[in-house]
C-alpha cells in the first residue's frame, strides 16, 4: 500500500505484448489486456490454450517452472512485476491465488487461515480477528466456528475450497486469481463459490480461469477468449456471449469445438 492515492481510471492490471515460451514452445503470443479495479474477469478457451499459463504470470507462479521465458510487460498498479527490483514474495502477498484442486495444508482449520498472517508477522492478539474475518468473508465461518481446531482435511471438497479462499483472504491481497476453482467440485459447492466470488468483487479485483462457459457468463464482467496462446477477443462478458466479433469465439461459446 505504498501509493496513497489510487488513480481510479488507471487499470489495475495492464498486460503489454506478453510472450511466453516453455523451452522452444511458445505458449503465449503477444497478449495485451487491461483489467480494472473491482471487476471479475473470466478467461475461457479450450484446454492448452494458455489461459492458465497467462493467469500464472500475474503472480509469477511461472517462475517455478524451468525453461520458462517471458517477454513483454505486466504492470500491476503501475509497476512492472517482472522489473529487476520486484520482490516476488511481496507481489504474491498482493496478488493471491486459489487453485484448481482444493489444497488445504494438513493442519487445523484455524492454522490454515492463520498460516499466512502468522508468517508475515501479525500479532498473536490480532490473529483471531483476522481468521474470523477471513472465514466470514469466504462464507465458511458458520460451518467451522465450532471446530476451528479440527483438521482442514476433515472438511468436504467444497468447504476445503472455501477454506482455501479464506486462507488467501487472510493475507489481505488486492487481486485474487482463481485457476479453475470449481472444476473439482459438485454443482452445489460450485454455486456457493460463484456467489462468493461475486461478493468478493466489492473488495477485490478478480481474474478467473474457467472451463465452464456458463460460469463465465454468470459471474464475470469481462471475458477473454484464448486460443492457441493468443487472446482472440476480450470484451464485456455481455458482448462476448451475445455479440462476439470473432468467428472462433462464436464457435467456441456455441460449443462447436473445445
Amino acid at each position, binding site marked *: 500500500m505504498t501509493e496513497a492515492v489510487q488513480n481510479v481510471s488507471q487499470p489495475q492490471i495492464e498486460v503489454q505484448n506478453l510472450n511466453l515460451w516453455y523451452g522452444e514452445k511458445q505458449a503465449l503470443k503477444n497478449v495485451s489486456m487491461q483489467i480494472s479495479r473491482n471487476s471479475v474477469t473470466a478467461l475461457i478457451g479450450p484446454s492448452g490454450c494458455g489461459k492458465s499459463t497467462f493467469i500464472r504470470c500475474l*503472480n509469477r*507462479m511461472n517462475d*517455478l517452472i*524451468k525453461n520458462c521465458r517471458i517477454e513483454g510487460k505486466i504492470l500491476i498498479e503501475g509497476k512492472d512485476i517482472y522489473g529487476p527490483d520486484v520482490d516476488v*514474495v*511481496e*507481489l*504474491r*502477498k*498482493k496478488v*493471491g*491465488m486459489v*487453485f484448481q*484442486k482444493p*489444497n488445504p*495444508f*494438513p493442519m487445523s482449520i484455524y492454522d490454515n487461515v492463520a*498460516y*499466512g498472517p502468522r*508468517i*508475515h508477522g501479525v500479532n498473536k492478539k490480532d490473529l483471531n480477528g483476522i481468521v474470523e474475518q477471513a472465514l466470514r468473508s469466504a462464507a465458511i465461518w458458520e460451518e467451522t466456528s465450532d471446530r476451528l481446531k*479440527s*483438521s482442514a*482435511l*476433515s472438511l468436504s471438497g467444497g468447504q476445503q475450497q472455501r477454506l*482455501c479462499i479464506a*486462507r*488467501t483472504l487472510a*493475507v489481505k491481497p488486492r487481486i485474487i486469481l482463481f485457476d479453475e476453482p470449481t472444476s473439482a467440485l459438485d454443482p452445489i459447492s460450485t454455486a456457493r463459490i460463484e456467489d462468493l466470488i461475486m461478493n468478493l468483487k466489492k473488495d477485490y479485483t478478480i481474474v478467473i480461469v474457467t472451463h465452464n462457459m456458463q460460469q463465465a457468463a454468470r459471474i464475470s464482467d469481462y471475458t477473454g477468449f484464448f486460443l492457441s496462446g493468443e487472446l482472440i477477443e476480450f470484451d464485456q462478458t455481455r458482448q462476448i456471449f451475445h455479440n462476439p466479433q470473432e468467428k472462433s469465439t462464436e464457435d467456441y461459446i456455441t460449443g462447436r469445438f473445445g
Partner: protein
Amino acid sequence: MGLNSNANEKIAFSLLTLATLIVTGFVLVILAYILLNGYGAISIEFLTQMPNRMMTAGGIFPAIVGTIALIIGSMLVALPLGVMAAIYLNEYAGESRTTWLIEMAINNLAGTPSVVFGLFGLALFVKYFDFGPSILSASLTLALLILPIIIRASEEALLTVPNEYRESSLALGVSKWQTIRYVVLPAAIPGIVTGSVLSIGRVAGETAPILFTGAAYFLPRLPDSIYSQFMALPYHLFVLATAGTNISETRSIQYGTALVLLIIVLGVNLVAVVIRRHYRNKLKI
C-alpha cells in the same frame, strides 16, 4: 502352457507363499534362538555391571553405554547434515550435471563396504584430525556411513509431499525457505524418521568402522569424555565369540549380549513407530 490359468494361479500363489514363509521362518528362528540362549544371561547385574574375571563373568554395562553413545553421537551429526543435504538436493538444486554427480556420489557412498569407512575414519579422524581412537572418531565415521541412508530417506520423504502444498504456500507470499520450514518439512517428518531409524540399526550393529576408530577390547572403566575409547556391543560380542579368554564358558554371555543389542535396535524402532504415528495423526484428521 498346457495348464489352464487357474492352475497357473495356484502354482504362483503357492510359490509366493512359500517364499514369504521361508523368509519369515528364518527371522523367527534367529529371534527364537537368540532369545532362548540369551534369556538366561539377562539380569540386572548383567545390564549394570562391568565385566570381570577376564570377561567370563559380570555384566556388559560399558558396552551398552558405548553403543548408546555411538547412536547419539552419529545421529547428532548425520541427521541434521543428511536432512539439510536432502532439502538442498530436492528443493533447491535443479536438474543439472552437478546434481546428477552428487546423487551418483551418494549412491556410491551407500554401496561402499563398511570396513572402508573404518579405514577412512582411521586416516581422517583418528590420525589427521588427531581425535585419537575415541567415541568422537567412531561416531563421525558411523555418521558418514549412514549419511547416504538418511539423505535417501529424506529425499524420498520430501518427494512425497504434494507440490500443491508448496505452490499454495508460495502463492500466499511466503518465501521458499519458510514454505519448506513450515509446510514441507512437517509433512515429510514421518518418512525422515523412518529412514533415520533404519540407520540407527546400522550404527548399533556395525563392527568394522568402529574397530579402527576407537572400540576397545576391554576397558576397566566407563568412557569419561568423547575423546575416550569405548566398548560397544557388536565388538564385545565378536571379542567374546572369537578372542575371549574362554569362549565356550562365555556362551551364555555372548547370547545375552546379542539379545541386548537386538532389544536396543527393536526398542529404537518402536520409538520411531510411535513418533511416526504421532505425526501422521497430527497431519491427517
